[in-house]
């Protein structure tokens, strides 16, 4: 009776798994690979079958099947169509049945406007030459950190003392994803790729496993409201320190790592008891104002002898420009803006889907505000949250970013299919799990190679596009909004984005 459907807890399945019985050779690879108990093998009947209600649509079974016998299809509920209530019936039922608010993962999946797709880039024709990146040098090197108002040079060289800078060979870094949310092997892969590509990965708020200290020189360490795993060695290993005030996927609330994911090594790294929930408070309890933030920034700078830039990460919210201005004045060297499409390992659905601002808009207004106030040089801007491809990177930089963070894109490169089950800890692709058997599914040798491939291809694509625009250095693209034109946007949106409409 274990697998009998019961009306009491019935919500129609989101997916239907179709199996071509002629092609199925009963190798049972799919049965073993399904970590959500959706696929079974019945010995007596010699039959592989599926409990659709448990299927999360991760497509692991379809991917592993050697005969291509499996197709996973989205199941549309066959209720009478109702534009107003469409999609709300089941989510309402779930709350009513279970008495709790659903927790979800990944980024906002609602059909809000994607401004990246309403912006077009320029290219040189006749009156100015385009550049071929395969024949001519193209510079992608970027420095993040506070820049002086002016520099003094004499015959012996630079006289101005510069504040510490992060040197990036490509303007793409791996976003904060903690060890705890992600498996050991994924962190290992991110670290290897960052080292190889001359960029940085962010430890996230879960501290740093001792094994990963070897990536020193390519790590940004995060200090979040839970302060998990923050100690002297941790700060020393980081090339920069990031204070996480907010996260795009869940602005205004803290983090929550379920106890099931707090394994022996996680508990050691996070300095907390094994099996207990890791709960980060919503605010930093010592940061209730810009002045408090300044104290924290300088406390971290003091403790690292002013050798490392300090970044402050905020979620894009309504007054983002004013907040960013305050952060710049509080002494931050880098501001990370996390848009509402940014991912997460766990967030209440209502928060993920309804709070925050698009990254594109926030980036434009923050860059504009800092320029108007004459303090843009005090901080570098890092754009984060929903960067999907290399052209999003180019557009972000043209809107005013110095560099970008990629999180979801990096996970997809490793295998993620965005089934939004990170919070369950059962990731069938071995990414967001602490199960030692599941996490073997990410082979760091293969995954780091894929990440390196991704960054190399994106770098080439960025160079190609820059070449088309007649630009040979990423510095010349920064805040260069004349290379952007808006399509399908209204006057106010164009004004806020600071770009001209197509044709003007």
């Amino acid at each position, binding site marked *: 009776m274990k697998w009998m459907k019961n009306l009491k807890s019935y919500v129609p399945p989101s997916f239907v798994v179709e199996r071509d019985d002629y092609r199925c050779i009963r190798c049972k*690879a799919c049965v073993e690979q399904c970590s959500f108990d959706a696929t079974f093998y019945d010995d007596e009947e010699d039959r592989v079958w599926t409990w659709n209600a448990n299927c999360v649509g991760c497509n692991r079974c379809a991917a592993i099947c*050697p005969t291509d016998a499996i197709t996973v299809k989205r199941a549309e509920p066959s209720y009478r169509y109702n534009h107003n209530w469409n999609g709300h019936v089941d989510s309402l039922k779930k709350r009513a049945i279970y008495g709790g608010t659903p927790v979800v993962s990944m980024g906002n999946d609602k059909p809000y406007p994607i401004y990246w797709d309403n912006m077009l880039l320029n290219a040189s024709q006749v009156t100015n030459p385009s550049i071929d990146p395969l024949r001519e040098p193209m510079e992608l090197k970027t420095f993040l950190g506070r820049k002086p108002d002016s520099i003094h040079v004499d015959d012996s060289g630079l006289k101005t003392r510069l504040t510490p800078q992060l040197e990036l060979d490509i303007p793409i870094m791996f976003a904060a994803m903690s060890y705890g949310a992600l498996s050991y092997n994924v962190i290992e892969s991110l670290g290897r790729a960052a080292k190889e590509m001359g960029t940085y990965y962010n430890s996230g708020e879960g501290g740093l496993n001792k094994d990963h200290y070897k990536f020193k020189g390519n790590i940004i360490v995060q200090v979040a409201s839970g302060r998990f795993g923050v100690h002297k060695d941790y700060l020393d290993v980081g090339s920069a320190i990031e204070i996480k005030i907010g996260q795009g996927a869940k602005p205004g609330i803290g983090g929550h790592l379920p106890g099931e994911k707090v394994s022996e090594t996680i508990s050691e790294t996070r300095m907390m008891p094994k099996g207990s929930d890791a709960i980060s408070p919503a605010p930093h309890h010592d940061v209730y104002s810009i002045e408090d933030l300044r104290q924290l920034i300088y406390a971290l700078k003091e403790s690292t002898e002013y050798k490392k830039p300090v970044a402050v990460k905020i979620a894009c919210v309504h007054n983002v420009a004013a907040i960013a201005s305050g952060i710049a004045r509080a002494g931050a060297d880098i501001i990370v803006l996390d848009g509402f499409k940014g991912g997460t390992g766990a967030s209440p659905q209502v928060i993920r889907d309804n709070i925050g601002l698009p990254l594109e808009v926030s980036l434009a207004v923050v860059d504009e505000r800092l320029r108007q106030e004459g303090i843009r040089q005090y901080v570098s801007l890092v754009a984060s949250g929903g960067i999907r491809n290399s052209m999003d990177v180019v557009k972000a930089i043209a809107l005013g970013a110095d560099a970008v963070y990629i999180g979801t894109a990096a996970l997809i490169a490793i295998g993620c299919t965005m089934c939004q089950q990170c919070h369950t800890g059962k990731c069938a692709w071995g990414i967001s799990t602490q199960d030692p058997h599941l996490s073997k599914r990410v082979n760091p*040798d293969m995954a780091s190679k894929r990440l390196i491939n991704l960054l190399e291809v994106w770098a080439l694509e960025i160079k190609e596009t820059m070449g088309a625009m007649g630009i040979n250095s990423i510095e010349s693209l920064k805040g260069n909004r004349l290379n952007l034109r808006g399509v399908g946007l209204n006057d106010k949106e164009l004004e806020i984005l600071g770009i001209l409409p197509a044709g003007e």
Partner: protein
Amino acid sequence: MKIVKIREDNCIFCHLCEVACIVEHSQSKDIIKAFKREEKPIARCSVEFNYPVSLSVMCRHCDDAPCVEACQNGSMHRDDRGYVVVDADTCVGCWMCIMACPYGVIKRDTRRESWGLSTKCDFCPDREIPACVEACPNEALTLEEI
């Protein structure tokens, strides 16, 4: 000489090495026909599991192969390439090789009319890269020079 290196840290217990081995040693070398139309060959590798450890094990082609020593009529022998293989025509199924093998990777095929046949990894003589290595989705089996 090249061998198949087993990397247990990467094995995901999908059994595709076994599937590939069966297909490679089938008559048709077609996955559907091998499993559904023919008498299915025995997989020469086997995936062992004891949570969270899993690994695929197949003949190590030992330098001092005890199975070759134990074979009463020289059916178990080293071929031109240096790999340990069975001569199916002369094997009488006495299973002494199975008794001698320290890895337990020789299997009994009792489906012949006359007598049994010791079945083990032959390092895919028709292929450059053994089928199991090629099929492994997570590079838990790799081909390496020793």
